[in-house]
């Protein structure tokens, strides 16, 4: 709605105050990002002068290159690149497989209901609310038995298992609103269990796939506890490597390198959100409000 009447000065004040408050808070929230970015482009000498909020006098990319390729983590001085690719190796299969499992569970729990489907769903939901710490020991044992301890494959398994609860919840709620008549029509047309899933249901699941992917990607990428518990050395994900880099106690603290490394670790989730963010909100809404 737009109004054509001239806005009186008195009625403008609340709006001005509102925006002022919003701008202050936005600045406050963006401050850490600003400090990280500016610091990462400064030389170490400039940082040591102490002007944390100032823009770099001399822009330099060296800290970024160092963080990527030559910073020392533990005994190796190869930067975080290897660990970055570890994380990618973990996140892609973990997200794809857990999302597929979730979609499949949602399909069965809504369209092929069996006796006790509510209990099964309840138990799966239960998995969403188990604290990470509780499963550390049993999971370590499982990984040992399967001979995938201290591997990225092991972490993939952990994240798939842990993710299924949420992905099932997302897909089940989405498919709950998916008309049953479509399934029946497909059955009469001669489509089987898997054909209905892959040809009818999955192509119509765009919004909820985006939600699940963003959710899972963020959780898996940002995971620290599982990474630090089940891997060590060169098999660690980027979050663990970042921690090791920042917490190394030898020599001078290279804040600029640390900040650049932190940016490397943060960028993928940001990229995913920027690319698919508008679908994220849309997808979250679509379960509750019928389009």
């Amino acid at each position: 709605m737009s109004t054509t009447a001239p806005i009186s000065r008195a009625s403008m004040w609340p709006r001005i105050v509102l925006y002022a408050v919003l701008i202050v808070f936005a600045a406050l929230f963006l401050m850490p990002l600003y400090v990280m970015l500016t610091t990462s482009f400064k030389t170490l000498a400039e940082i040591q002068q102490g002007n944390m909020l100032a823009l770099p006098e001399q822009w330099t990319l060296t800290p970024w290159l160092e963080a990527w390729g030559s910073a020392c983590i533990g005994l190796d001085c190869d930067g975080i690149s290897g660990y970055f690719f570890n994380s990618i190796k973990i996140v892609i299969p973990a997200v794809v497989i857990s999302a597929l499992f979730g979609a499949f569970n949602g399909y069965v729990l809504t369209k092929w209901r069996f006796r006790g489907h509510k209990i099964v769903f309840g138990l799966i939901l239960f998995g969403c609310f188990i604290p990470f710490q509780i499963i550390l020991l049993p999971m370590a044992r499982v990984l040992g038995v399967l001979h995938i301890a201290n591997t990225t494959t092991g972490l993939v398994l952990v994240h798939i298992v842990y993710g299924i609860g949420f992905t099932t919840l997302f897909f089940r709620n989405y498919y709950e609103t998916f008309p049953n008549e479509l399934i029946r029509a497909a059955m009469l047309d001669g489509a089987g269990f898997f054909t209905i899933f892959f040809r009818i249901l999955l192509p119509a699941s765009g919004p909820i796939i985006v939600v699940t992917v963003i959710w899972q990607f963020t959780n898996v990428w940002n995971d620290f506890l599982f990474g630090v518990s089940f891997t060590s050395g060169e098999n660690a994900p980027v979050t663990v490597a970042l921690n090791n880099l920042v917490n190394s106690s030898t020599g001078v603290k290279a804040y600029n390198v640390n900040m650049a490394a932190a940016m490397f670790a943060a960028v993928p989730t940001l990229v995913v959100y920027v690319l698919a963010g508008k679908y994220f909100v849309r997808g979250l809404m679509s379960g509750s409000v019928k389009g």
Partner: protein
Amino acid sequence: MSFLHIDNVKKRFGDTTVLKGIDITIEKGDFLVLVGPSGCGKSTLLNMIAGLDSISEGELRLNGEVISHVHPSQRDIAMVFQSYALYPSMTVAGNIGFGLEMRKVPKPEREKAIKNVAQMLQIESLLDRKPAQLSGGQRQRVAMGRALVREPQLFLFDEPLSNLDAKLRVDMRTEIKQLHQRLKATIVYVTHDQIEAMTLATRIAVMRGGELQQLGTPHDVYDDPNNLFVAGFMGSPSMNLIEARIEKDGEELVAWVETADDRLKLPVVRDREALGAYAGRRVILGLRPEAITDSRSANHQDGIIYEAALNVEIIEPTGADLYVVTMLGGREVNARMRSGTAVEVGQSAPFAFDVARMVAFDPESEARIR
């Protein structure tokens, strides 16, 4: 040899019986309409024919084969759903061809079949669109195309017109009828709209509360109803149901009906033998609005016309007809007169009763007396 035989079919959900033994037989080329108020079990019966609901008891036979426990995809049946159920991610062509694709029909044949059906339904220009880009009427056509393209032995329609607006509904009704006549297809059609039932059917099955009330041609169901429910459900405005008393008048049998200030004597000509046993008892007479009219419109040729002067309570001109309401047996009675008949509210006017069309019901059992 009947084409579709529904043999004492029952459906139970736990302790509740939804269908209490339905027996229906139709021939090849028949258009069977299952009609009844919501909750009467008509959609359940249709789903059972399709194989989407299991049968608790009884048997289904299609073209001589028992199909009670055959998988839906193997029954050679196609269905048009109320919500159309078009696959949202496929184009119109994809939707229509999906059933053929699943049956591994080679692509060139499939495309030819899609084209033929699209031509027949006049949706050729829409073949590349997605269902979301179609209007209600177009979606309806695509849904029918999806059923037609497979050339099944039996078509099922589940309230296909109920999501369309009034004008489109009448147009599509005509089209479905034309399609049936052209293809000589066998159709089972579910609706709660008795006008749809009357216009489309070759056979009507009126259902209530999981029981079959009457199975017959539209003419049977309309003019020769089995019970009070069928009489009241079919026809709009519905059949006049008038309380009366049967008495012997010498050799003749007559029905006495109370008017506002007097009594009206109507001779009984139909079902006389059965009604003879009701002499001295109360019955409910059934007379269609068009069987009570003005003396000029009355069917003097085939009917048996009995005229009486009655007080006019309400007049409702519809343009084509003039509905005149009078009181008989303490109830409003609708008479359909020629438009422009000179009647005035509060005045007496001549009403012509076609007693040859008069039927009677037992007030207790609600069954037809015949």
